[in-house]
């Protein structure tokens, strides 16, 4: 009987120890995630904002990317988070662009799209992307930054992504290739072409 009691006590203590380890592991993982997200959130927002040209859509994309990373990849090694996060963010940006395109098509076919009949309906003008930078940006950013943002937004998506991840976020070629889901050679090609296109378009601002 003593053997049974001892065995039960040992099992319980082992399970309690395992439970404590898991809690500590969770707390450490949460701290690492918080540090990572705090480090990338501003640049991620700017990348999404340049692609979408809309602050709310950019914020939604960043939040969605954060949630997906935490939900699906929190257990992965921390060094893999950056390429995973930016890959997720790019998918979120594409989803937002698709939703915007579909919404624009639907609204263009609706006879009441002008917003005169139903007061509860969302105002399409409010939902449309803002082609101009936000007022706060206009105050803080100069003419050069605005020109750069317009030029970046006009780039093909892959070139823009390669340029921002390599030059702005500072990912190396391999991490950028993981984030873009392509080869390192493709990253170099996209980056080089983006650089050439931006220089050709913005040369006057750097003269």
């Amino acid at each position, binding site marked *: 009987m003593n053997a*049974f009691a001892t065995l039960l006590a040992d099992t319980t203590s082992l399970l309690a120890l395992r*439970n404590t380890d*898991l809690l500590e592991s*969770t707390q450490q993982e949460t701290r690492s995630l918080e540090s990572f997200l*705090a480090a990338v959130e501003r640049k991620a927002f700017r990348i999404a904002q340049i692609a979408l040209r809309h602050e709310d859509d950019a914020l939604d994309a960043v*939040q969605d990317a954060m949630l997906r990373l935490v939900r699906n990849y929190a257990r992965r090694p921390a060094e893999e988070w950056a390429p995973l996060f930016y890959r997720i963010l790019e998918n979120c940006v594409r989803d937002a662009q698709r939703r915007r395109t579909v919404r624009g098509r639907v609204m263009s076919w609706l006879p009441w799209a002008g917003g005169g009949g139903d007061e509860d309906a969302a105002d399409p003008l409010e939902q449309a992307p803002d082609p101009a930078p936000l007022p706060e940006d206009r105050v803080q950013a100069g003419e050069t930054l605005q020109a*750069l943002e317009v030029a970046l937004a006009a780039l093909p998506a892959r070139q823009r992504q390669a340029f921002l991840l390599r030059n702005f976020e500072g990912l190396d070629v391999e991490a950028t290739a993981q984030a873009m889901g392509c080869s390192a050679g493709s990253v*170099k090609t996209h*980056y080089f072409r983006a650089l050439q296109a931006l220089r050709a378009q913005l040369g006057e601002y750097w003269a």
Partner: protein
Amino acid sequence: MSEELDPASAEFARRTRELLEASAAALPARTRSRLTRARYAALEQHAAVRTAGTRALWQRALPAGAVSAAVLGVLLLVAAPHAPQVQQASVTGVATGDDLELLVDRDALALAQDQGTADADADVDYEFYAWAVSAAQDDAGPGVGS
């Protein structure tokens, strides 16, 4: 940056990077606040999912461990009376509970020695037994003959 860029392109890249970094550092307070809230929402979701997972593991593991221990305990109790090593212990002379009682009780030890000794005849008082037999016959003699 592993790409080989000409000096003009490298300078262009450096200036664009500084410009973009400055714009990210100078985000409005409202935007920074929303980003912080988004981060906390993600972290809360993570903590909730992991805590629920840990609790579920605990809730599964504890009954499983208790049942395993109970089964093992029952097996030990059932198998104990039939264990062969107990019988073997007394045969091979290993001290058992009976042996310890014999050692503690001096009289019992002497009796056991008398019973277990093969040449106990050397210590038997034959004269006493012969006297006892004859005395008994003498006591019974007159009664029988009369």
